[in-house]
Every structure is written in structure tokens, then in C-alpha cells.
């Protein structure tokens, strides 16, 4: 029996294309039908964002990017429509724009407990669907406890920055790969797939890797 195909995914918790891309990737894996092992890696899109950013995503886009409020609302409306096309009901009226470094630390904590994939899904749901805060330690600890992690130990790990070095190592590795946007998928350590591709694109590259493995056996 062959080894699962490793897929390393760089992603940020408040990246709308990362959640949409996750759904498309999952559909691609289903189309492929073979075994895949997924590991998420940290990528901070806006590391300078304050934890308690005082404003909405529209405020953020218009203040930071010089986009008019009307354009920002239009952009968000379009992303929401695209999310809906893959079954995700983004709730931008209740999103808390924040700094995601603690969420990334939590993802590494969860990985150390063998629960990273559940944690990733839960954090994306928290941010885009549920209007939960994913930047503050107590909120993150509550979310972690929901998937069965030890709340007190999560608070300890996040407060002591136990996994901050792992977050920074992921960011550094992304730079080594030349990754400047997310989601980004590294498949079998060889193929790079950028962005929220169609499911068939993921299925095709996974099938290519499987064929290459068969050819050398």
C-alpha cells in the first residue's frame, strides 16, 4: 500500500479565499479518491492588525487600502456570493477583523495534539460564519475547548507564546518557497498550486503524483 500524498497548505484564518479554497480542495480530494495527508501552515496576511481592530471589514478596506466604502461593500458582497456557491454563508456583518497570530499558535498547539484539521475548520467557521473573535486568548481557548482541547492548557500555551516560533518558522518556509499569497498548496513537496482553484485542478495534480509514484514502482 502506497504512502498518502502529503499536501502542505499555507493559509490564514481571515483569508476568504482560504476557506473557499479549502472546500474546493476537499472536493478535489474526493474526486481523486486516493489517500491524502494534509498539514496546515501559518501565513499572516496582515500581521500589523491590532487584536481589537475597532471597525468592520469595510472600515478596514477603506481605511487601509484607500478603497471607497461603496467599492469595499461591493467587493465583500461578491466574495460572499462566491462563498455561497461552495456552501459557505459568510457573515461579514458580524466579522471581527483582528490579528491572527494567536489563532496560528493555536493551530500549532492543536497539531501537537493531533487535532489540527478540526481546529482549522473550527477557526474558519468561527471567523467567517459565526462572528466569533479569533484574536483574543480567552475566545480562542473557548473555541479550542469546544473541540475537546484542554482550555487551561491552551491559555497557558498561548499566553507563554509556546508555539510562536513554529508560526514564524512556517512564515519563513513560505518565503523560501516564494509564496506571497494564500491559500497555497504544496503537493508531494514538488507541485505548487496557488489560490482557490477549481476542484478538478487539485484532483488532476493529485492524480499526476499518483501516476508518477506508480511509474517508479
Amino acid at each position: 500500500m502506497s504512502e498518502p500524498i502529503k499536501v502542505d497548505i499555507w493559509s490564514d484564518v481571515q483569508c476568504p479565499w482560504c476557506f473557499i479554497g479549502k472546500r474546493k480542495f476537499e472536493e478535489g480530494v474526493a474526486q481523486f479518491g486516493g489517500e491524502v495527508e494534509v498539514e496546515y501552515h501559518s501565513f499572516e496576511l496582515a500581521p500589523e492588525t491590532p487584536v481589537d481592530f475597532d471597525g468592520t471589514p469595510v472600515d478596514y478596506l477603506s481605511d487601509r487600502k484607500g478603497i471607497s466604502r461603496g467599492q469595499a461593500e461591493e467587493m465583500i458582497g461578491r466574495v460572499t456570493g462566491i462563498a455561497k456557491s461552495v456552501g459557505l454563508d459568510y457573515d461579514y456583518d458580524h466579522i471581527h477583523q483582528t490579528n491572527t497570530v494567536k489563532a496560528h499558535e493555536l493551530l500549532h498547539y492543536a497539531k501537537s495534539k493531533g487535532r489540527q484539521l478540526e481546529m482549522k475548520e473550527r477557526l474558519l467557521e468561527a471567523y467567517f460564519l459565526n462572528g466569533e473573535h479569533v484574536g483574543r486568548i480567552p475566545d480562542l481557548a473557548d473555541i479550542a475547548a469546544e473541540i475537546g482541547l484542554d482550555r487551561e492548557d491552551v491559555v497557558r500555551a498561548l499566553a507563554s507564546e509556546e508555539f510562536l516560533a513554529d508560526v514564524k518558522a512556517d512564515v519563513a518556509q513560505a518565503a523560501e518557497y516564494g509564496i506571497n499569497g494564500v491559500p497555497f498548496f504544496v503537493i508531494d513537496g514538488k507541485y505548487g498550486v496557488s489560490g482557490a482553484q477549481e476542484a478538478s485542478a487539485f484532483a488532476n495534480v493529485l492524480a499526476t503524483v499518483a501516476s508518477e509514484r506508480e511509474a517508479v514502482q
Partner: protein
Amino acid sequence: MTDASPIPLLIVGDPTAAACVGDFCEIPDHHEQAVVNARLDDDNV
């Protein structure tokens, strides 16, 4: 000491797929069409 160079990856897939770069998330034109198509499907047009 050697110059740092990116680890080589073979880039595959649609080069225009939507991604977030920095704190900005672009919306490629073909995604707009996908949404229109989905709405048409929903409306049974």
C-alpha cells in the same frame, strides 16, 4: 555562503485563481462569471 533562493516548485493549475496577497484579496473576473452561473442555476433559468 550561498545566496538564498526559493525552493523550486512546479507551479500548476490556473494562474489566475483567487488568492489573498498581503491584506488584499482580489476577485478574478472568472469568479464573477461563476457566481452569475450559480445564480442562473438557482433560478432555474
